[in-house]
């Protein structure tokens, strides 16, 4: 009785088609040999992928995005790790307020954050600074890392820490030899998730990037509002490839199901 009837399966097939259709089509169209958006049945070619590499602005944006994602994900982990340890282990006055503050970017629309950063950067005269772009991205992605660190910290079996402590290990040794290895999967999963989120981010970035710091999603958005040609499809396909690769690593490190739903399926 716990199996699906034919109607349920048909419904499921339709939903899966709906979910995958635009992504699969983007990847197919990327290989077209023609000048218009069309399926590559009349002949496949890599010309539109080549076109991407002949656009220095797209390449520049790709490097910007890559650098930005690497730096902000790393910075994010450095900040979320101690904060997660404190929030996960200790009860202290102001704990709930801090917890709320650290998770607040999840309930503030990215659009509002983008506008707010744009205003602050202009007041401070730092518009166009790459460093502050990294900081802005760090704020937006840290909640994801923090949640993963918190989940990892809560899941630690404290007895081995206590054993080490009773055998005379100092707090730093306990952290380095016991705690850190125990939360490493959660931490690296968090880093990867932060990387993907930063790499894909559009809505906030569009307000705070300048021509020199434009990220790939922003460049793609600008390009797509002006013209639609198969090159957009190849850039998108490359984007899906990169995200897909990151997802694969994430799955190995931590389990994609745990990241997306919060539990093992």
């Amino acid at each position: 009785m716990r199996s699906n009837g034919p109607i349920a399966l048909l419904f499921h097939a339709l939903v899966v088609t709906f979910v995958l259709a635009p992504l699969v089509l983007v990847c197919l169209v990327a290989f077209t040999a023609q000048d218009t958006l069309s399926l590559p049945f009349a002949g496949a070619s890599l010309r539109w992928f080549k076109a991407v590499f002949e656009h220095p602005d797209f390449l520049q944006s790709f490097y910007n995005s890559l650098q930005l994602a690497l730096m902000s994900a790393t910075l994010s982990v450095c900040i979320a790790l101690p904060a997660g340890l404190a929030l996960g282990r200790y009860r202290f006055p102001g704990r709930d307020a801090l917890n709320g503050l650290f998770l607040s970017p999840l309930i503030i629309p990215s659009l509002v954050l983008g506008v707010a950063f744009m205003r602050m950067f202009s007041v401070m005269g730092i518009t166009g600074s790459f460093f502050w772009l990294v900081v802005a991205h760090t704020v937006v992605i840290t909640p994801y890392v923090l949640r993963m660190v918190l989940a990892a910290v809560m899941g630690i079996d404290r007895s081995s820490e206590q054993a080490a402590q009773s055998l005379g290990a100092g707090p730093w040794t306990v952290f380095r030899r016991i705690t850190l290895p125990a939360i490493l999967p959660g931490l690296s999963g968090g880093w990867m998730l932060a990387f993907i989120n930063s790499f894909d981010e559009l809505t906030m970035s569009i307000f705070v990037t300048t021509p020199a710091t434009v990220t790939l999603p922003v460049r793609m958005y600008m390009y797509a509002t002006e013209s639609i040609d198969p090159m957009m499809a190849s850039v998108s396909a490359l984007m899906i490839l990169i995200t897909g690769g990151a997802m694969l690593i994430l799955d190995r490190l931590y389990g994609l199901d745990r990241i997306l739903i919060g539990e093992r399926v």
Partner: protein
Amino acid sequence: MSDPAASSLKPKRSLPYILTAPATLLFATMVLVPLLLTALLAFNSYDDSVGIKSTYDLHNYLAIFGDDYYLRIFWRTFWIAGLTTLICVIVGAPEAYVLSRMSRKWRAFFLIVILAPLLVSVVVRAFGWSMLLSADGLINHGLQALGMAPVKMLYTSGAIVVALVHVMLPFMVIPVWTALQRLDPTVEHAALSLNASQATVLRRILLPQVAPGVLSGSLIVFGLSASAFAIPGLLGGRRLKMVATTVYDEFLGSLNWPLGASIAIVLLVANLIIMMTYNRILERRYSKTLG
């Protein structure tokens, strides 16, 4: 501390504050300060020749709520987000149920298929839909091949809703799925063995327990749809504006930052009210079941 094992570490009182100091510094300077500046900016006025003038009054808010143009944009955003939420409930909740009844292997596979697009950039997904729906897009090519007239789909509210549903569906499937996992299957078995029909089981057992998941998903979907930017930007065109694209145009097009800031603040406040209402409802539910 309730956990005796935890207290045995005996932290210094200042330790948690030292550990959270970098995050506190980051979030204070990058969340509180910019939001405060934006709230102040919304009280300023804008002049084409002078730029932003530091007046402090409510004229931007009065302009938004007194002008048909902005009210129409808010109304459009509201109903598009509402319709998207409704469709996500109608599609996402049954899909989560179908997934939960699959065998373990297929379930894990299809959950990832349904949820993984969440990690693909929204620009890519918006572009995918614009490619499908455009005048000489693939759907119209298909229609023409079948001898039918092409249909204008891109730059309509329909296109925005379809693409938003595509982006938001995972946010509905996840909470409903989580609620279904907490369900005790033996209750369903018991009801069936006592001769309850499938429909009764669905109505009396499944729905009440899944409702919080649906509610939670609806609020997330509504909030994210109402502030969505890339989808209306690429699929709505210049004329079919939603709140987010309007804010963008005020900031980067007409350069009227104060007006843009006040629209953004309205969006933020509306979003926070929705989230807090949700928490209130949850609390009431809990106090009812516990007290």
